[in-house]
């Protein structure tokens, strides 16, 4: 074991500075070495392919052909394609509908579960979170059956209640309603998982004091829960918008974008351009447009996550 000599630190300042620089440099080399695997994976699998996609978005690349530079024609092509604007509008409707409902219902469920006193609480939470474990593939199987116009339990239930049967997945307007319902079903556990842990950290005596002062449940929600929950709620909202904008799997499996393109989201429009028409140049152009939209929307989120993980706590 090394014993530190009393006079060891009393070397001249230049010597000390040099040694300090060497220590920093060796430290930096180790840092780089330890960080390199993560960045290698990210650069190889996501970053470089995306850069290549930017190049082919300016070409007429089709699978198997060699790409030829055609300038901005791909961008002009989709920007003048009515189907693109339809997909954008469908996406906006889908995001607004699905995110609004999932945030409100998810908030309600999270607050309800936080106040719930039950010996089986762990079971109820597990059952609420269960849809999170269901693959989009299995969700689409389940909901295709539930929404089946002829033998589906949903239509049976509706008729029992005295309403008319609905053409859920095939009706021109109902298809959008159906895919929003399924998306909400899949997303609510994520919202609950975001808001519930935040809610249970609030001091309970705040609520007790308010109750003693005669505050109504609405007042308690308005003046205690809402201000405290706001940061988590906003972060969750932004996150859900980013995730919902890119929706593809379950909608593709339920409706293939139909009927009559009424559920053709941007991702589905892009997928068809790439994997049905095999126009990869044009699909890459749409992909980059989607990437730019996502990045604009995500910048707040990225900044928040960066601040949380790397800046805020260092100051403490």
């Amino acid at each position, binding site marked *: *074991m090394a014993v530190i000599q009393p006079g060891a630190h009393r070397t001249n300042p230049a010597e000390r500075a040099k040694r300090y620089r060497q220590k920093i440099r060796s*430290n930096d080399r*180790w*840092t780089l*070495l*330890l*960080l390199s*695997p*993560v*960045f290698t*994976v*990210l650069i*190889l*699998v996501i970053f470089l392919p*995306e850069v*290549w*996609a930017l190049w082919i978005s300016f070409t007429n690349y089709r*699978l198997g052909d060699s790409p030829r530079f055609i300038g901005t024609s791909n961008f002009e092509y989709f920007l003048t394609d009515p189907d693109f604007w339809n997909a954008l509008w469908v996406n906006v409707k889908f995001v607004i509908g699905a995110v609004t409902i999932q945030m409100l219902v998810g908030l309600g469920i999270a607050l*309800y579960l936080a106040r719930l006193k039950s010996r089986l609480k762990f079971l*109820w*939470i597990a059952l*609420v*979170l*269960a*849809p*999170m*474990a*269901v*693959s989009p*593939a*299995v969700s*689409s*199987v*389940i*909901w295709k*059956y539930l929404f089946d116009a002829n*033998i589906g339990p949903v239509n049976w239930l509706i008729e029992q209640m005295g309403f008319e049967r609905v053409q859920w997945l095939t009706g021109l307007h109902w298809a959008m309603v159906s895919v929003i319902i399924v998306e909400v*079903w899949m997303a609510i556990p994520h919202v609950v*998982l*975001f808001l519930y*842990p935040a809610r249970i950290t609030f001091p309970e005596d705040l609520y007790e004091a308010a109750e*003693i002062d005669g505050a109504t449940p609405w007042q308690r929600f308005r003046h205690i829960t809402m201000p405290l929950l706001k940061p988590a709620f906003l972060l969750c909202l932004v996150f859900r918008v*980013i995730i919902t904008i890119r929706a*593809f799997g379950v909608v593709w*499996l339920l409706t293939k974008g139909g009927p009559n393109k009424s559920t053709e989201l941007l991702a589905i429009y*892009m997928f068809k351009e790439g*994997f049905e028409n095999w126009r*990869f140049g044009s699909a*890459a152009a749409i*992909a*980059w447009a*989607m*990437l730019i939209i996502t*990045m604009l929307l995500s910048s707040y989120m*990225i900044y928040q*996550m*960066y601040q949380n*993980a*790397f800046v805020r*706590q260092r100051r403490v």
Partner: protein
Amino acid sequence: MAVRAPSIARRVGSALLLFLIIFWSFAPIAIALVSSFKHPRDIFTYVPTVVFEPTLANYAALLDEWSSFWSAMGNSVIVTAGAAAMVVLVSLPAAYAYSRMARPAFALSALFLIAVRMFPPIIVTIPLFPLLTRMGLTDTPIALIFVYAAFMVSISVLLLKNFLDAVPHELDEAATLDGATRIQTFVRITLPQIAPGIAASIIFVTLFAWNDFTFAFILAGTGSKTGPVIITEMMGAVGEGASNWGIIFAASMAQLAPILLFVWLIQKPLLRGFSASKTGD
């Protein structure tokens, strides 16, 4: 003043609300589970059959007629385990570097790490499909392992860094003074302390890789198809009479049961890990 005990009407209302919440989230899964034990003729009725003779016929048919389903499930296991292992191996050193060594200048690189995670998966398939096809990787699990790992490393690094930050530096220093090398210190002292963080990372990767449809559907060839993809193919085969709803429900439950059990078992670290990171989906 004591807080009043809730009235009976309040309690009934609360129970009703709980029933509605649970019905909404779990009834679809329960219906699929029950249907997987029904004869196809009992599934195909307009008035739902509540009383029926449970049968294992669907599962038997799945075993006999759909060997492709089971090989796809095997692929799912390989891809999920591979991606989870890769994520932990790659993100642990990075999390350690960010937590213990990196100067503030390096923290900026984390912006790239976080930003890349926001890329929508579907847009990455456009360049990846031609590239992987040209490299001949679409029929192997390697492509999916790398793609899943790439999309999950960022959240895993942030999560593990969070846990590492919570381990007091004094512990490291004490061990170092006792003559332990940096690696010994890490393996013996630090690693056991961040085990819940590693568990949480593995859960996130497993949920994503086991259930993913988009990447597997587009990037996997016939030899590397995963469970979710084959289930959707079985759906397509209903029209041709090659499969039926009973078999599909059985397959769906065979795909869902392992992951549901998994999530159930690790519920608590998941809730904790999530509140700690605020980064996952």
